[in-house]
C-alpha cells in the first residue's frame, strides 16, 4: 500500500517562485538562478513514493535539497509547487489547523541535532507529543515509558538531556517520535551527528525496532553506507534534483550518471583497506610448548570454535582442528606433534582486503594475519572480511 506520494514537487526560496520556475524549465542552473534573482532552488520536480512499512532513504551531499524535501512532506517547509499525498490525503491542501492535526496523527520526526527540549527531563521530552495531544496524564506516562524501554533508556527517565551522551540523546529523540505512535517516521540525518561506532549501534537498533514496528520510514542521510544498510530503496539527490531511485543493488551496479557513479565509487574502499582493518583478534591460541590435545580442546571449547592456532616460540606454528585433537586425545598423545597442520593461509597485515577474497578457502579455519615481525596478530573469516569492509567504509566517510 502506498503511504507517501510526492508529485512534481518544487521548493523555491524567495518571493517570486513563478518567475524562477520559468528559468528552471529553460534549464538554468541553480547557481545562475541564485546569481540572477537571489532565489534559492531547494527541490526541483521531485517524484517518488514510499510504501507501507518501507524504509526509503533520501541521500545526497549537503545542499542537495534532501532536508528540504523531507520537510516538504510534513510541511515544516511549504512546497512551492506540487503535491504531497499521505494516506490518500493531499497534505499541501490542508489548512494550518488541519495540518496540525494531521501531523499529530501521522508524523513522528527525529532531528539531526536531536532537538530535545533542554528544560524537560527524558520522560517529559518523550511525553511531549502526547502532552500536546492532551492525552490523559497516566496514559501518556505509560506510552512514554514503553517508548523509553523500547530504545533501552529505562532508568534515565528523570535525567535532563544535557546529562546524556549524544547516542543516548538521540535515543530520547527516537523515543519521542515513537511515543506518538504515528504511522510514519521522518528521520532527518538522525544519526549523522553521532560518532561512527554509536551510529552503527543506532542503525542496528533502528533495524531491529523496525522489524517489530513496521513503520513507514523516510530517512535522510549523506552517508551511502547508512543508506544501503537501512534503506529498502534509495533516492539519490543532487542540486535539488532526484538523480536516481532504486534499491542499493540498482544504484551500486547501474549508476544512472557520473555523479552517482562517483558517489558509489567511494564505497569500494576495499582497494585501500588492508588485512589489518578487517581482522579479528584471535580469541584464544594454543601454545606448542605446553599444550596437549586435551588443553587445546578445552581452549577451543572456551571460544566455541572447532579449530585453534598454535604458537611456538611466539611465532605461529600451525593449526589444530577439533576432530584431530579428539583422536589424539583418545590415542593418548601428550603433545600436538602428530596433529598440527600447516596448510593454513597466512597474509601480512598490509595485504589489500580485496585480494583476500581469493584466498578464502574451504578450510574450516580462517586466514591468519602476521605483522611485519611475523608475529601472529589476527584472523580473518568471511564474516569479518565482509562486515569489516562495510564498517571501515563508514568510518572513512
Amino acid at each position: 500500500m502506498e503511504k507517501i506520494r510526492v508529485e512534481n514537487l518544487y521548493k523555491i526560496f524567495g518571493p517570486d517562485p513563478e518567475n524562477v520556475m520559468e528559468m528552471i524549465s529553460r534549464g538554468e542552473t541553480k547557481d545562475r538562478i541564485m546569481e540572477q534573482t537571489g532565489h534559492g532552488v531547494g527541490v526541483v520536480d521531485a517524484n517518488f513514493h514510499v510504501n507501507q512499512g518501507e524504509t526509503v532513504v533520501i541521500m545526497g551531499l549537503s545542499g542537495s535539497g534532501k532536508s528540504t524535501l523531507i520537510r516538504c512532506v510534513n510541511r515544516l517547509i511549504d512546497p512551492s509547487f506540487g503535491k504531497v499525498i499521505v494516506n490518500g490525503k493531499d497534505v499541501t491542501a490542508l489548512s494550518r489547523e488541519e495540518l496540525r492535526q494531521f501531523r499529530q496523527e501521522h508524523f513522528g520526526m527525529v532531528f539531526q541535532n536531536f532537538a530535545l527540549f533542554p528544560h524537560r527531563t527524558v520522560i517529559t521530552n518523550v511525553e511531549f507529543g502526547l502532552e500536546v495531544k492532551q492525552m490523559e496524564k497516566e496514559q501518556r506516562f505509560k506510552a512514554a515509558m514503553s517508548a523509553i524501554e523500547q530504545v533501552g533508556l529505562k532508568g534515565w527517565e528523570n535525567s535532563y538531556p544535557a546529562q546524556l551522551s549524544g547516542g543516548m540523546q538521540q535515543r530520547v529523540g527516537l523515543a519521542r517520535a515513537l511515543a506518538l505512535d504515528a504511522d510514519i517516521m521522518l528521520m532527518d540525518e538522525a544519526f549523522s551527528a553521532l560518532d561512527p561506532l554509536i551510529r552503527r549501534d543506532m542503525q542496528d537498533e533502528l533495524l531491529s525496532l523496525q522489524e517489530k514496528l513496521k513503520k513507514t520510514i523516510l530517512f535522510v542521510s549523506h552517508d551511502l553506507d547508512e543508506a544501503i544498510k537501512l534503506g529498502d530503496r534509495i533516492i539519490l539527490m543532487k542540486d535539488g534534483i532526484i538523480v536516481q531511485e532504486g534499491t542499493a543493488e540498482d544504484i551500486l551496479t547501474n549508476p544512472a550518471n557520473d555523479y552517482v557513479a562517483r558517489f558509489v565509487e567511494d564505497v569500494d574502499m576495499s582497494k585501500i583497506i588492508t588485512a589489518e582493518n578487517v581482522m579479528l583478534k584471535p580469541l584464544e591460541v594454543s601454545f606448542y610448548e605446553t599444550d596437549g590435545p586435551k588443553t587445546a580442546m578445552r581452549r577451543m571449547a572456551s571460544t566455541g570454535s572447532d579449530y585453534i592456532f598454535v604458537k611456538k616460540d611466539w611465532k605461529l606454528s600451525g593449526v589444530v582442528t577439533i576432530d584431530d585433537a579428539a583422536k589424539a586425545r583418545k590415542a593418548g598423545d601428550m603433545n600436538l606433534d602428530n596433529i598440527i597442520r600447516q596448510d593454513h593461509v597466512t597474509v601480512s597485515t598490509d595485504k589489500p582486503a580485496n585480494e583476500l577474497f581469493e584466498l578464502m578457502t574451504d578450510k574450516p579455519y580462517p586466514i591468519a594475519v602476521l605483522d611485519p615481525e611475523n608475529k601472529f596478530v589476527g584472523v580473518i573469516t568471511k564474516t569479518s572480511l565482509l562486515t569489516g569492509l562495510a564498517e571501515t567504509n563508514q568510518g572513512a566517510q
Partner: protein
Amino acid sequence: MEVYKLPVGKTIENSIDFFVENFSFITKSISHFTEAGIDLIVSAIMFFPPWLLILLASGATFAATRKKGYGVGIFTLAGLTLIWNMRLWEPAVSTIALVVIATLISMCIGLPLGILAALNNTFYRIVMPVLDFMQTMPAFVYLIPAIPFFGLGPVAAIFSTVIFSVPPSIRLTCLGIKQVPAELVEAADAFACTKWQKLVKLQVPIATPTIMAGLNQTIMLALSMVVIAAMIGAKGLGGEVWKAIQRLQPGKGFEAGIGIVIIAIILDRVMQQFGEKRD
C-alpha cells in the same frame, strides 16, 4: 529676521492638555484609589515590628541564595538592621512597596509586549524605536506630565517609574524568545504544537533566564526612578534624600543613600538567583 521655531513643545503640551482635560478624571480617580491601596499596604507592613520583618526577610533571602553561601543572608540581616537603626525603616518600606508595585506593573506590560514583539516582526519594528526613545529621554522629563494626570504623590511616581523601567523587560523578553533555537521551535511544530502550546511549553520556559535578567534590570531602574520621583511627592528614602538636599544636610542625605544602596544590593542578588540557568 527671526527664524521660525517649530512648535514641538507646544504641540506636546497641547496634546497633553487635551488628554488632561478629557481624561484626568479617570486618572485622578485611579490615583486616589491606588494611593489608598499603597497607604494600606505600607501601614499593614508597619503594623508588624521591624525586627520580625527583618528576620523574615533575612530568612527568605538566606533560603533563596543558599546555594551561593551565607553572604547574602547575612548582608540582608545586617543591612536591614542598619536601616532600622538609622530610623529609616518606614521610608524604606514605602520605597520597597513602590518598587514592587511599579515592577509588577512593568512586568504585566513588558511580558506580553515582549512576546508579541518576538513573534510579530511588524510590531517589533514599531516598538523598538519607541523603547529607544523611552530609554534615552532623561528620566526627569516623565515627572512633568505625570503630575497633571495623577497629582503630586506616589501614583504619579509609579506612573513615571513604570515608563522608565518597562523597556528592559520588553526588550529582554523579546530577546529571550527570539533566542530559542530554531531547531527546537521546528521540533515543537513537527510535534503539532499550537502557537499557544509552543509559547507555554517551549519558548517562555527556555527564555526564562533572559526574562529574569530583564526583571532584574527593571527592578534596578524602578529603584533608581522611585528615588528621583521623590521630587513629585513619592515619599520613602528618595524623599529623605530630597529633604536633605533642600536643607543641605549631607549626613542625612548619605544615610538615606546608603539605605537605597542596601536595598538595591539585596534585590539584585536575590533576583540573580532566579535568573541563573539550570544546568
